């Protein structure tokens, strides 16, 4: 009897111990910060370093003279290392990278790939980066105030009011679909050619469900061109999948509406 009790006790303890050891690891994985961060960090350094280095050095030296403990973000790391070999306590360095990471969210530094893809929009006029910067600044502020108010620690996952893609995110998605959409050339360009498709996406950007919003128009007599257009748009979306959606914030973009309108293109 007592032997059985002991075995039972030991066995249960073992099970609890294993669960306690493994479960947190399983929980932790998805929360991990996305690894893309480090790639972008390098680009910022390159960019800021090349044009501003001479000026920056002067400023840095001045600042160093004034207060030797202040470290500028713009200073090249190698120079820092040479000038202050004894310093570099690890915690401080970590702080430094964190600061830069924050700054990096500022879209003044949009990935070069995305910039290329947004060539289509360039003709249209204004500096998209500036506007993207403004929007994202606003978003950051919003997120910060929310954090203060509700003490929610996960940043943008639970922000129901920030339901929009940034310009750069939108550009990436748009450019991807441009490449997949073979526009049927026989369409009458003097008619209403707007096709609205509602998508339900999986977290990896694949399509769970695609639905044409004006479905009734597909079978309307005299609107056969609409069916052809809608089908071509659906084909484009399917060929393109997985769609280039942001790596985080699935709640934001799991439902997405694409408005296809080739009127401008057909008019030439």
């Amino acid at each position: 009897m007592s032997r059985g009790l002991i075995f039972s006790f030991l066995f249960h303890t073992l099970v609890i111990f294993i669960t306690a050891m493994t479960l947190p690891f399983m929980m932790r994985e998805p929360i991990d910060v996305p690894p893309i961060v480090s790639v972008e960090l390098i680009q910022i350094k390159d960019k800021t370093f090349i044009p501003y280095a001479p000026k920056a050095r002067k400023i840095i030296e001045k600042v160093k003279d004034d207060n030797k403990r202040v470290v500028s973000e713009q200073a090249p790391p190698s120079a820092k290392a040479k000038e202050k070999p004894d310093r570099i306590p690890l915690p401080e360095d970590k702080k430094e990278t964190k600061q830069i990471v924050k700054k990096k969210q500022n879209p003044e530094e949009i990935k070069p790939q995305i910039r290329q893809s947004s060539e289509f929009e360039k003709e249209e006029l204004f500096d998209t980066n500036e506007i993207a910067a403004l929007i994202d600044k606003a978003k950051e502020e919003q997120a910060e105030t929310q954090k203060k108010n509700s003490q929610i620690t996960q940043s943008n996952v639970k922000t129901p009011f920030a339901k929009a893609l940034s310009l750069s995110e939108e550009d990436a998605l748009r450019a991807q679909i441009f490449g997949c959409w073979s526009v049927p050339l026989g369409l009458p360009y003097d008619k209403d050619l707007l096709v609205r498709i509602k998508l339900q996406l999986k977290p990896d950007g694949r399509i769970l469900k695609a639905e044409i919003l004006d479905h009734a128009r597909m079978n309307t007599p005299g609107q056969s061109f609409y069916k052809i257009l809608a089908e071509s748009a659906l084909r484009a979306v399917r060929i393109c999948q997985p769609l280039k959606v942001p790596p985080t914030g699935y709640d934001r973009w799991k439902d997405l509406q694409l408005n296809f309108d080739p009127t401008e293109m057909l008019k030439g």
Partner: protein
Amino acid sequence: MKKTIIIFIFFVLTIENAFSLIKVDITRGNLDPLPIAVSPLHIDNKSEDFKSLKEKKLGEEISKIIEKNFKSTGLFNPLKKDAFVQKPDIAHLKPRFEDWRLIKAQALITGKIVVKDKKLKVEFRLWDLTAAKEMLALSFTTTPTNWRRVAHIISDKIYERLTGETGYFDTRIIYVSEKGPKDQRVKKLAIMDQDGHGTKYLTLGNELVLTPRFNPTNQLVTYMSYFKNMPRVYLLDIETGIQEVVGNFPGMTFAPRFSPDGKKIIMSFAKDGNSDIYSMDMETRVVERITDHSAIDTSPSYSPDGKYICFNSDRSGLQQIYTMRSDGSQVKRITFGSGIYGTPVWSPRGDLIAFTKMRKGKFYIGVMRSDGTGERLLTENYYQEAPSWSPNGRVLIFYRETKSDSKGKGFTAKLWSIDITGYNERLVKTETDASDPSWSSLLSK
């Protein structure tokens, strides 16, 4: 109370905001040719003469014609058959969509051939490979000798289903066949399928012939011939071979063309160095004068609704394009660019007019809107003229001559086609040299 209402409205607004969809506008796409797989049509083993059909490879031949038609549009890219992953008979029942997608095809055509009671039955299916569903399924029954036409009709149906506009494959082209040295050319009227197959000669070549044009039913042709050295407009019935002179004019008539309803022929009549535009009713043979001007008015062409006519005239000094109502009123000049404009032809869609332009010793084929705006020159060359529209108004066919050397050699005249976007310029193969092409309307309507 007020407070609760305000709070309620606030909630409604925020909920709406929270659940509103992210919308992305897609205003551009690509114009790359659509990758399409045309599986050879399989021959049903219940067919009569199964062996001979197999030997003739009829299924493969039909699929080749469809492929060739699609390739010529520049809008499709038929994939090589080596990469095909399924047998034609199984694919026709139910394709394995994933496998076809692997070879990057977006659409698949499959089909079956049966011969029963000496009649050929061809059925085909068009599959959307990305959506994994059937888009179109039709079958045609005809006499076995008509198999080429069936291939063209299938091409038309698929083209229409995928692009939204009618096709132009089941059509014919009439043209002037030319042979011999430049100063002694033998010119005959010739007719062929739009893909260059099945050429037939309609005249013997004793007289010079020019500017043949189909009537809307494609049974009659009007053209100009120098019979007994008198240039006149003639009418030819393609099936019976009967010819007749159009109208009893005391002088030279030229540049004839049918009205869209086929009831009238419009042409130029020249007398004492002045030419004006006349029309003749086909039933009553009554001739009506439409323009009355001391300048040379020629090359008339009706708008598709028959209400307007475009023509060229040198009444302003240089030859330019004008439009007027079909009774001759409201004459309006529509071209003002530098150079000389000629051979205007109204598009079957009604939105554009094609023309030939000569400027600084170069010839251009171009299109513009029917009010003269939006001029676009599609192609430039040493000598080219006489554009004619495909029945869907998407492609132009015209002829181009090359320069002969000092010994008079090297001269050629060939037919060319070009898309109205200015892309996809192609040589149209003909048995001999060719000029003055005219595209028929669809044979099967």
